[in-house]
């Protein structure tokens, strides 16, 4: 048709590259974490990207399965792990299902990294309290492994991690190395145990209350289902954490990741640009719409 005479050129004259073109990456490894969650390790196809893709713990990326679409995942690997990126995927919708169906060696697209990050520099010298629930451990793992890789930079680290059942705990293969790190304690719990589970049973906030870690000069970093966050916050406040000493990362539906598509806003705050990492003090300033 004559009215479709638009030119197609590879590059707009004098324009920046498209924000929406992903880097190609190959799935190097896919670890089945739980019955519905897998962690993918992807290696960028292009050597330069491999070298230049620099990210911080807490940032996220847009992952493409070509022909199906794109979805947002936080980076769960630590920047100290060189040569690849990792992200965990819970099977809930069409893109996540398509990701689960991919095999090692398949090509995906990755855009990013996007968003802000955990202030790991400011956290230096401080004691850290990680509180994670279910798949919410994914962004925490990035920071946790970063801190453990630079162990001497940080103070005492307490890790509270819980899930519905033992089978819903992710990153079990790393539990030993977390627990055995110097000056580090790992507290696991499940809402409902099974015949093999010998550990703690109960929800995460209750576990935090029971242990009541006494930490001064500490920062709490939490991520998990909204209900867990809701009941964890009062516990942290009771432990003496101020609103500024509690960090969390928010999840909203995103499409572009770069502040254009208009759906991840909470009030005038765009989670993709101003988040996903917020202090509890910042969150209290937001309208309750997340």
């Amino acid at each position, binding site marked *: 048709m*004559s*009215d479709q*005479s*638009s*030119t*197609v*050129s*590879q*590059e*707009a004259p004098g*324009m*920046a*590259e*498209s*924000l*929406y*073109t992903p880097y*190609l990456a*190959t799935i190097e490894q896919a670890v089945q974490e739980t019955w519905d969650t897998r962690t993918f390790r992807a290696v960028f196809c292009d050597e330069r990207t491999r070298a230049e893709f620099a990210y911080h713990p807490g940032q996220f990326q847009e992952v*493409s399965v*070509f*022909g199906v*679409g*794109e*979805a947002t995942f936080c980076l769960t690997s630590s920047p100290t792990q060189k040569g690849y990126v990792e992200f965990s995927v*819970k099977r*809930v*919708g069409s*893109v*996540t299902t398509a990701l689960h169906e991919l*095999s090692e*060696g*398949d*090509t995906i*697209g990755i855009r990013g990294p996007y968003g802000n990050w955990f202030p790991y520099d400011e956290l230096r010298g401080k004691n850290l309290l990680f509180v994670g629930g279910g798949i919410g451990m994914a962004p925490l793992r990035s920071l946790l492994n970063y801190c453990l890789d630079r162990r001497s930079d940080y103070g005492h680290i307490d890790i509270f991690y819980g899930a519905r059942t033992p089978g819903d705990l992710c990153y079990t293969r790393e539990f030993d190395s977390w627990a055995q790190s110097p000056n580090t304690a790992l507290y696991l719990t499940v809402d409902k145990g099974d015949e093999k589970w010998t550990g703690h049973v109960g929800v995460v906030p209750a576990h935090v209350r029971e242990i009541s870690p006494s930490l001064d000069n500490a920062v709490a970093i939490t991520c998990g289902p*909204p209900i867990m966050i809701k009941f964890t916050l009062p516990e942290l406040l009771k432990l003496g954490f101020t609103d500024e000493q509690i960090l969390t990362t928010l*999840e*909203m*539906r995103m*499409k*572009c990741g*770069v*502040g*254009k*598509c*208009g*759906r991840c*806003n*909470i*009030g*005038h705050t*765009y989670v993709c*640009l101003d988040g996903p990492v917020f202090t509890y003090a910042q969150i*209290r*300033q*937001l*309208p*309750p*719409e*997340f």
Partner: protein
Amino acid sequence: MAEINATMLGASELLPWALRLAASRRVLAPIAGTDGAVRYLPVSPDATLVFSGGRPVRGPKEHFMPQTDPLFTFTGSGPAVALQPVFNHEPAVIFGVRPCDGRALRSLDNVFLRRRETDAHYAARRGQTIMVGLACAEPGWGCFCTTVGGSPAGTDGLDLLLTDLGDRYHVRILTSAGRELLEDTVCSPSSDTEERLAAEQHARAIVRLQLAFDSNRIAERVTWDSPIWERVARRCLECGVCNFLCPLCHCFDIQDETTADGGIRFRCWDTCQFDEFTKMGAGHNPRAGRKERLRQRMSHKFKYLVEEFGQAGCTGCGRCVEMCPVNIDIRAVLAELGTVPSAEHPAK
């Protein structure tokens, strides 16, 4: 010598001029289809240009933000995938842009060019498009541009502004790009009488537009806990008429479509009025109901964008007012927000 900033163009010269320009670029104008429906379409010798009446229901936004906008194509599957970026753009001129639609580009610019990184797809089209405006002689019943700081003869975002004087157009030259465009046609200097006639026509249109609500410090009055949201949203049908016709609603979705040997990644208009807009994969929806979604639409336009860029996300074009199936009139909602006391969200 002082530059001339206004000139006259014979009405019969308009289409020939547009066609001459079309030889070297894409030229769009409001054109009637066989059943009279008006859209901004490429000009052709047999086209019926619609330069009279109010602003067309379908504005020129789609030229900058096509409803379906390819981003790249891909071929292959499994380990062998190749991407081919797509940039659809070319030099263009849009005729008959109403001042409300011209002004709307400022808001789109804020989002696509100023909010952090530049959107190259939008930027390429924006940078290569010349806007030939048309002063609005017949505002619609839903129009309220003057309430939100615009004018039926506003020049924001335009390169030329035409004013219809019957057999000829008064042309106000606003930019050098507009001036260059005029080199392709025969113009005559405007007389004082013609200047006066144009000004009178502008004034007549302005007089017809009453202030619809008090826009002063409007962001403070768009409150989170107003009872209005619930009451008005009750009749909302959650269609996308308001958003899709809005000259500066810009939200989009990104999707894939497969073709025989690969596929295409495109973005497409989306609307905050649809349930799935913010619904997450696992089912949680932060804006779960029509109340939340109506509040989002109104607050985004009159609070969040004001807080971010100092300018409301609305140019008062009145399309959503006139086309809402259930008469949700944004003017009435905003007027009422100024009067209904509400329990404020503690933090705001």
